[in-house]
């Protein structure tokens, strides 16, 4: 089980680095798709099955397609200026390392202390659905409003004006 974990983790990290590092936007989009897939696998391993499926459909399916579509639409060429100024990378990298240096040991220490709960939580559709429509009904409705806002906004912004 852990071997699979490390394999998927490796794929995940490589694709993440690929997203950040590749100069061509389309490559980074494709790397992102790879990354999303590996996250979906992770979900499955953590038996959040419903989420794994949703991840694949929503993220990989819908969002990435939209992104690729827009990339193609605007035929973005390679980033013309030198994408990665030396100083900026250095500093950002250093910052990232500092962040990790602070967070990772902290995570280890505090979460190791917390005992793994006995309940073997199963993220099946039924469980999630039951919870979603009873307890989380208010955020669910709010989320619907959120999507509505996104749709209306997107249409308003991107609609081509036909004016005389």
């Amino acid at each position, binding site marked *: 089980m852990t071997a699979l974990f490390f394999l998927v983790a490796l794929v995940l990290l490589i694709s993440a680095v690929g997203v950040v590092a590749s100069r061509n936007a389309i490559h980074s989009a494709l790397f992102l798709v790879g990354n999303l897939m590996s996250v979906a696998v992770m979900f499955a391993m953590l038996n959040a099955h419903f989420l794994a499926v949703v991840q694949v459909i929503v993220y990989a399916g819908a969002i990435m397609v939209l992104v690729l579509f827009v990339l193609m639409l605007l035929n973005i060429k390679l980033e013309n200026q030198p994408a990665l100024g030396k100083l900026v990378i250095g500093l950002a990298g250093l*910052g990232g390392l500092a*962040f990790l240096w602070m967070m990772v040991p*902290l995570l280890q220490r505090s979460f190791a202390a917390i005992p793994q709960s006995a309940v073997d939580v199963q993220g099946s559709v039924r469980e999630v659905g039951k919870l979603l429509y009873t307890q989380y009904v208010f955020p669910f409705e709010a989320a619907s409003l959120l999507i509505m806002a996104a749709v209306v906004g997107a249409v308003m912004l991107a609609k081509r004006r036909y004016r005389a």
Partner: protein
Amino acid sequence: MEQNGVTALGYIPLFPLIGSVLAFIIGRSKRDAAGWIATLASAMAFAVVVALVMAMPEEAEYYYRAFTWFSVGGFTLDFAFRFDHLTAVMCLVVTGIGSLIHLYSVAYMAEDEGRHRFFAYLNLFMFSMLLLVLGANLLVLFVGWEGVGLCSYLLIGFWFKNLSYAGAGRKAFVVNRIGDAGFLFGMFMLYRQFDTLDFAELAQAISVNASPELLPLYFVVALCLFVGATGKSAQIPLFVWLPDAMAGPTPVSALIHAATMVTAGVYMMARLNFLFDLAPQAQAIVAIVAVFTAMVAALTALTQNDIKKVLAYSTVSQLGFMFMAAGAGVYWVAVFHLVTHAFFKACLFLGAGSVIHGCHHEQDMRHMGGLWSKMPITAATYGISTLAIAGIYPLSGYFSKHAILAALEGGHNPALEGLLELLVPMASVTAFLTAFYMTRSFAMTFLGSYRGHAHPHESPLRMTAPLIVLAGLALVGGLWLGGTLPHYLAPVLGSPAEHGHESIIEGLMHSWIGIAGIGVGLLCYTSLSQIPATIYRVIGPLSTLSLNKFYFDELYAAVVVKPLEAIARVLFRVVDQGMIDGAVNGTAAVVDVSGEVARSTQTGQVRHYAFFMFVAALLMLFLFVFAGRV
């Protein structure tokens, strides 16, 4: 001190005040009426004074409390008048000679179109002088003190079109103000010590605690008050304003700068004799200053060519004599000389006025001469007064001057022991010089041939009448007052030491100084006219010194006025605008610049924003995670 509230006392100053206001208002339309209103007002004041003097029983004092000026936190002060023998004498001099000068001015200022203003100021001066003299406490005296300062400012600068005259007025006021500041210090110290400024209370309080540790206080107070006196009565440090005060019309010089205002210092010392007696060292200083002032003034008068300047310096010199007497502690002699001086100096000034009037505003003696024939009355009165001032036997000048020299020698003041050998000869030399320069002025004006190009004529009766009266008083004043004055003033100034009656021959004998002075004077300026030129060459430096008035003006300008002006400019330019304003605008600029620096972080690049946010997030995390308590 009984409270027989004699309202009449209130009327004395009231008449000149009303006169001043009426003269100004009525005078605006009818110019001539102003003169008569003013003269009438001062005459009525004189009448009231005479009536009061007559009605006043021996040893009595009138006291009149007009109203409580202010009472604040236990310090009450009444606007009150007090009329004792000393005040009587002063009031008689002020109102008497004042009225005469008013009469004289009516004619003198006849064709000056601003005369209603002149008479208003003159009456206002009379009002202030009376306040000064009648005041029952130091504060009312001080009110009069500064009031006369103001009127002298206004009258000196009366012909304000000429900026130098206006400057002279300002100089007079400022120098007086410096003296007044000294006077104020004296008052503060008295108030702090005794919580009162009323003469009676002060006298009583001081007599009660004349304890040794208070002596230094009396010394300092006496000295401060004397500084005030030097300002007002033109003694050494602060006398520079008097010669310039001649810029005013001549009656002003006569009234203010000869008879009344300049004597305020002497009156003040006489009034506070109980204080000065307790400060012998202070009195010594007064005497020394007085002698030196007299000497210097006399020397300067020697070389003056302007007739009024001569008389001005002579006044300074005679004031020196009065302060000698006061310094020696014999106050009645000072008052005696004050009175006699008022007579003949007023007469001299008015005489000079009628000469100037006659020669159509010619003041330089070198352009006069031989006026004896053209202006006999003026010449005669001028001659009598010259004799009086020189101190020739029967005239009043002799008695008072002789009394001063006697007082000086008499040595009442212990502190003066050592100095007498120096002071008495100097006084005598000064007396000699006085006689000399007065004869010089008389000779240059009236004897010899007329050097001017106007055609002088005798002044009208309204001008010559006062001259005659004053000359008469100068003649007979000495004899009459010599006897009665000491006893009259005894209740206020203490009984004088007895001295025998002199016979005529002794009189003549003692006035040898005066006779010698006149003799030498006549000799130089009538027949052997080239002698004075040779003398000047011989004593070279001394004569230039005297010619330039001992460079006092230049000294003050260099030491005080110029540096102060420079400091003022520096303070304004450098300190005010440079440093303080600079600091204020500086902080504003710092805030502005730091605003600009802060603005530069707002580059407009999303990348930069993201980076700054990331750094800030890291910092926050660091603070939280590691510092624990932040």
